[in-house]
């Protein structure tokens, strides 16, 4: 809003959290996503990444803080994995209109944009992991979403597939200027284009640009020293300066006890 690069905030979370049955799933989360901006949520299993994403998209009602969304916000969702049973006959063509009506020309264009036009008539059960992921991107993009939510987008894709998918995400961002919310537990891989990385472990542990987070003591404490050295950033035509948020470690001053507790939980997950 105050920055020229952020003409319009699609989603803003302020100190948001969800408490369910007396248990805090996640709390004190603040971030916003503007058009063309990429925010990555990173953290171990059970750290509240999915809860935070659901809270942001409105699937889950926040019980603490505030969440605001641009009115009429269209969301495109790329699931982590989609196991479609053989009993359900589904072609790529039919998958494209799963949640909305779209014409043949739109379908062709969306598949073409991800290089999957030749798969239009294929049954989804026949696709390889990488092909299916591309088709799922096309399916989400055909909705012309303001915000694209990617749940572990490179899960189960081999290294070259990973690079290709990150390329695709970048192209989508550049072409459509959609905001992108990415969820990842793969700590080794974070897109360099990510504007803000948010490390979660029941609360926000640290945040900032990928390079700032990589060296943050909070990040290293959460994921172990090894993770820091292994965190790979996919660099690509870095043509703009990141505004450096640094690591907002101080934001957790009120959560000392909770923090300790979460760290305890996180022990088994460090890799």
């Amino acid at each position, binding site marked *: 809003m105050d920055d020229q690069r952020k003409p319009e905030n699609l989603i803003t979370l302020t100190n948001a959290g969800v408490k369910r049955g007396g248990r805090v799933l996640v709390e004190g989360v603040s971030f916003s996503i503007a058009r063309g901006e990429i925010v990555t949520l990173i953290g171990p299993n059970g750290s509240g990444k999915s809860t935070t994403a*659901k809270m942001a*998209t409105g*699937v889950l009602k926040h019980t603490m803080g505030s969440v605001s969304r641009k009115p009429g916000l269209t*969301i*495109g*969702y790329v*699931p982590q994995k*989609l196991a*479609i*049973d*053989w*009993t*359900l*006959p*589904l*072609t790529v063509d*039919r*998958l494209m*209109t*799963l*949640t*909305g*009506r779209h014409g043949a020309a739109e379908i062709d264009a969306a598949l073409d944009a991800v290089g999957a036009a*030749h*798969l*239009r*008539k*294929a*049954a989804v*059960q*026949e696709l390889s992991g990488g092909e299916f992921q591309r088709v799922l991107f096309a399916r989400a993009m055909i*909705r012309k979403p303001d915000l694209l*939510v990617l*749940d572990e987008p490179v899960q189960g894709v081999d290294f070259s597939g990973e690079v290709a998918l990150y390329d695709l995400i970048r192209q989508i961002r550049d072409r459509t200027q959609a905001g992108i919310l990415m969820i990842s537990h793969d700590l080794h891989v974070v897109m360099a284009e990510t504007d803000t990385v948010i490390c979660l472990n029941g609360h926000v542990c640290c945040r900032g640009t990928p390079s700032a987070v990589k060296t943050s003591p909070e990040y290293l404490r959460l994921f172990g020293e090894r993770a820091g050295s292994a965190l790979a950033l996919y660099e690509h035509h870095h043509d703009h300066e990141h505004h450096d948020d640094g690591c907002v470690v101080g934001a957790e001053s009120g959560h000392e006890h909770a923090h300790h507790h979460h760290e305890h939980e996180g022990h088994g997950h460090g890799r």
Partner: protein
Amino acid sequence: MDMLLVWEAPMFGDFFSRALIAGVGLAAVTGPLGCFVVWRRMSYFGDTMAHSALLGVALSILLSINMTFGVFAVAALVAGALLLLQKQNTLSTDALLGILSHASLAVGLVIVGFLTQVRIDLMAFLFGDILAVSVQDIAIIYGGGIAILAILILNWRPLLAATVSPELAEAEGLKPEVSKIILMILMASVIAIAMKLVGVMLITSLLIIPAATARRLSATPEMMAVVAAVLGAVAVVGGLFGSRSWDTASGPSIVVMALAIFLVSLLVPTARLFGRREHNGA
């Protein structure tokens, strides 16, 4: 020629054609709805709801309310109870289904035993009596069937999206929980209108077998729904004529016919014809 004689025999013509009309009408509904049962792996769930129909019959007589409504209400209640119990996260769904299924059947049978003042043909409720279908029954089947199909068609996209991926449907603004409830209500309705025709023990077979057969012959969900309806109708017609020719029980004959079609379909390698990649050529 034999069939034509049967068709035109004055003794048979009336109730036999009523049975045909009723059965084909039912198949048109169980085909598409059965696809969802197969896709969502709800066949044991459907069985449980069907078994509870006998409890519905018993309670309807006990409270002297409309039987179709009574069966619908009990089946819907059992479905609701299962949803609530599932959220408790104690026993597995499998065990819960086993308990609800047989408990409701047993309670129904016990209550029927107490109803000494009314004579109940238990076999008719367990295995159906399609040849005893009245014009009024046909009106209920077609009225209810058209309503069920209309709800199914109007909600098709969200229902299918919720079946493919509840998370995806939810993230893109649909309500998969509502879809689940809609499907349960539709299943309770189908059981209520189908019970008299094929009986509580065989209802789920009309949902599952035509849909399972249609899978091999279909490339899209919509095609599978239509093919299942057609195959179900063929099973009804074939089964009824078979039961006439060989003097076998009508309900089971329809199911045997559906099974025969399913077995034949296994020989047809049609699934290979669909879903080809263009660059694969052959």
